């Protein structure tokens, strides 16, 4: 509490005494953060573990049960699970560096501090559709011409895709409106279906939705050049940066009714029983970026097109659509968490 309000300058001597900070991170880019951090604060050793959000969650829970403090800082995605299973049990706690209080909008500061935003949005092959997205409305995906040609990762295999499904259900009202726009008549719900979102998911699956195991398979399927009739599907906007290397033609479909997908946060949080509380706070502060307009070395690994910093003061990445122009739902992790399991069960019943 006391520490929470300390400035970097005040934290530094304490952190130096601790001399070490352990970070669990869901991305290997933490390696580059580590180098930068140790260069910025010599004498404080950052120890970084790279593991998926799921593995972090398993590890944090087991560690808590065993009474050991593994990490000081947790850098994690998979917001709904983190909130319900970690934050609510106080296994991880919120920390917002004083420096960030004014730079990060409220919605990204609570219940945990979000460092940046990622996406799962509808994307298409710009080589096959040079005139823009062939789809203007999510409901188009349930039409016969897209039968067997919509692709995504099995929402029961990956949390972010389940979040997408959940958001669609949460935004049922928008979905119902979009239905009218697409078919020119009000939506009629099928039996046992409670809302337009569920109806959409049902119809999508009924339209021979193709499921795969990883985002990369989606990218390849959609993006591969030289296809006459490529599928369309949901994936990460930021993967577009690999277009050149991989030979893809991925492009985001932004103008979609009611939305092209979701934007979700990556959290930076403290371990409630951190062994190095000061260094932990210092590390979070560092990872939020410095005062330069690209966030400096601490944020550099995350300053990529298709991911947006939650800080409002950083410059837009030149290659990407600004967040404000991006037509996505920003998930509300708390709301999502509430019905996520039900949506999972709903999807489970479909396949």
């Amino acid at each position, binding site marked *: 509490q006391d520490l929470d309000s300390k400035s970097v300058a005040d934290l530094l001597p304490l952190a130096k005494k601790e001399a070490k900070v352990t970070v669990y991170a869901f991305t290997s880019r933490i390696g580059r953060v580590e180098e930068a951090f140790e260069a910025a604060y010599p004498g404080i050793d950052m120890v970084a573990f790279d593991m998926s959000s799921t593995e972090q969650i398993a590890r944090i829970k087991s560690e808590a049960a*065993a009474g050991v403090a593994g990490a000081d800082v947790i850098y994690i995605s998979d917001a709904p*699970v983190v909130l319900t299973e970690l934050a609510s049990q106080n296994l991880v706690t919120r920390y917002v560096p004083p420096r960030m209080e004014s730079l990060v909008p409220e919605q990204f500061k609570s219940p945990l501090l979000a460092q940046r935003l990622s996406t799962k949005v509808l994307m298409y092959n710009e080589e096959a559709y040079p005139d823009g997205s062939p789809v203007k409305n999510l409901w188009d995906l349930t039409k016969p011409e897209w039968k067997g040609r919509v692709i995504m990762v099995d*929402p029961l295999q990956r949390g972010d895709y389940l979040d997408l499904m959940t958001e669609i259900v949460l935004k049922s009202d928008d979905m119902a409106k979009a239905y009218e726009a697409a078919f020119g008549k009000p939506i009629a719900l099928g039996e046992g279906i409670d809302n337009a979102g569920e109806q959409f998911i049902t119809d999508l699956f009924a339209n021979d939705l193709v499921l795969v195991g990883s985002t990369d398979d989606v990218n*390849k399927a959609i993006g591969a050049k030289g*296809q006459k009739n490529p599928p369309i599907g949901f994936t990460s906007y930021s993967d577009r940066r690999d277009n050149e290397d991989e*030979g893809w033609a991925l492009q985001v479909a932004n103008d979609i009714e009611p939305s092209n997908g979701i934007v979700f946060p990556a959290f930076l949080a403290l371990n409630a029983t951190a062994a190095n509380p000061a260094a932990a706070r210092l590390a979070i502060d560092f990872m939020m970026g410095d005062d330069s307009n690209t966030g400096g070395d601490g944020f550099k690994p995350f300053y990529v097109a298709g991911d947006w910093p939650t800080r409002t003061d950083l410059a837009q990445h030149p290659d990407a659509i600004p967040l404000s122009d991006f037509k996505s739902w920003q998930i509300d992790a708390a709301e999502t968490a509430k019905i996520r399991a039900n949506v999972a069960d709903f999807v489970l019943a479909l396949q």
Partner: protein
Amino acid sequence: MTVPLRRLRPSLARYGLTAAMALILVVLVAAPLATILIQTLQSGGGAWADVLASRLSQNLFWRPATNTMIIGLAVAGGCVLLGGFLAWLVVMTDVPGRPLIAFMATLPFMIPSFATALAWGSVFRNGRVGGAGGLLEGLGFSVPDWLSWGMVPTIVVLIAHYYALAFTVIAAALSTVNGDLVEAAQMTGASRKRILFGIVLPVVTPAVIAGGSLAFAGAVSNFAAPALLGLPVRMQTLSTRLFGMIEIGQTERGYVLAILLIAISAIFLGIGNRILNSRRSFATISGKGARPRRFTLGTMRLPLALLAWTVCILTTLLPILLLLAASLAPSSLSLFSDWTLHYWIGAADPAFARGQPGIFHHPQLISALTTTLMLGAGVVFAANALGLLIAVALTRQKVPVLSNAVSQLSFLPMLLPGIAFAAAYIALYGAPIGPLPALYGTKLLLGLALTAAMLPFAVQTGRATVAQISGDIDEAARMTGAGFFHRLWAITLPLAARGLAAGLLISFVNVIGDLAITVLLYTPTSPLLAVLSYSYASDGFHQFANAVTLVILVISMLATCAATLLRGRRRQTFA
């Protein structure tokens, strides 16, 4: 005082080893497993109801379970047939190029199964998931979905991946089969095929069961192949389901599925156990010396050789080639163009691969390499030493209930998803237990968990070979007054050497490739190759990940070579 001691001693001699092994298995396997079981029950057991008796259970459990069992049994059968056939060819016939076939046939399970699946796709893939089709579509054939996706390709790919396990274990066993058993069969006028399936494979039943069980366990817990080939037609297996459940935060359901997977598998594995525990003996190494027997294949020599070569090339060279290409080609869409060594040795270049330098510039590659090797070697020796002891206990001391428990327990780690296994280890041994310090964060904990995870391989292979040594050989050594470990070292070990080498190899390959357990338990000061590969992959640097995978593969291959050479230097008279 003396009387109870007197009573104790003979029963110790009779059950002591088994009891000791049971104790170790409780610590290594049963306790962590119980932790997981308790977790699933803590919240009222709702997950059990969801999985077994709810409107969801059909999709959540029953259908995936059915698929899993079909796959498991088909793969086990296929692997035993294919692996057994190749083992027979290599060990018992004069097929040309035996050493090379032997070498190649051990490779497939070192190649990650996604590469094998990729190889399948490169031929049979159709346009269902976009992109270009495979070779067949390229030639103008239209490939139906059942051949591109789902059950059939999954089974074929898994057989192509796991038959090497069966091959390795069965070949080791066959090489010790006393020639006169085969000769006796030849005298009856039986055809080669008849002898193979009527005598040769049955006399090495322990190895066949070991190979089959390992393949079964591998197949039912494999994730990559059903995820790659099954999902597009919405075929789910228990492993994809439970992986998904854990992934989307429904951990309890995931663990319930894992426990159910274990339970179902235990039924099938129990059948194998019963055969091994029956009165039947499989002592093919007799105390009368033995001459090895080789069939001359005659006119079938070339056709059979061709068949073996085709299988080997398709299941090893093709996936390896694809893997190699995938580590050289900038685009995963056209694997055979624009090859560059950048991903291996390139210096950092901001304009290419997001500035990532080649893997040989990775600052931790060397330390990852050495840690991997050291850890691998340590774990493998620990696991196999234990495995041999367990195998001896199971073969020589048949204690009614305990033996069965030991046998089953030693197999379970193979079926339990690594993430669950590792989590249980942290939960159980992470905190201090009584006077014992917390093991969390130590290499010891990782070592213990990996040792437990490798036990199935060690026990199965050990058991297959120990069962072949006729009892009187050991008894003759007991008569000399040599102690248990002395006999183990001088008599059992050399006679079981081939099988043990197989066990060492299989577990080594597994341990250096293991990710699921390592990723939760490793210590960051010493990353492992698998973790390295994983972090590359998780950021979308596939070429780099594949390059590291190839490094792992090369290490595995070197280990195989070493094992072969070691074996070759021994005079193979009894075998």
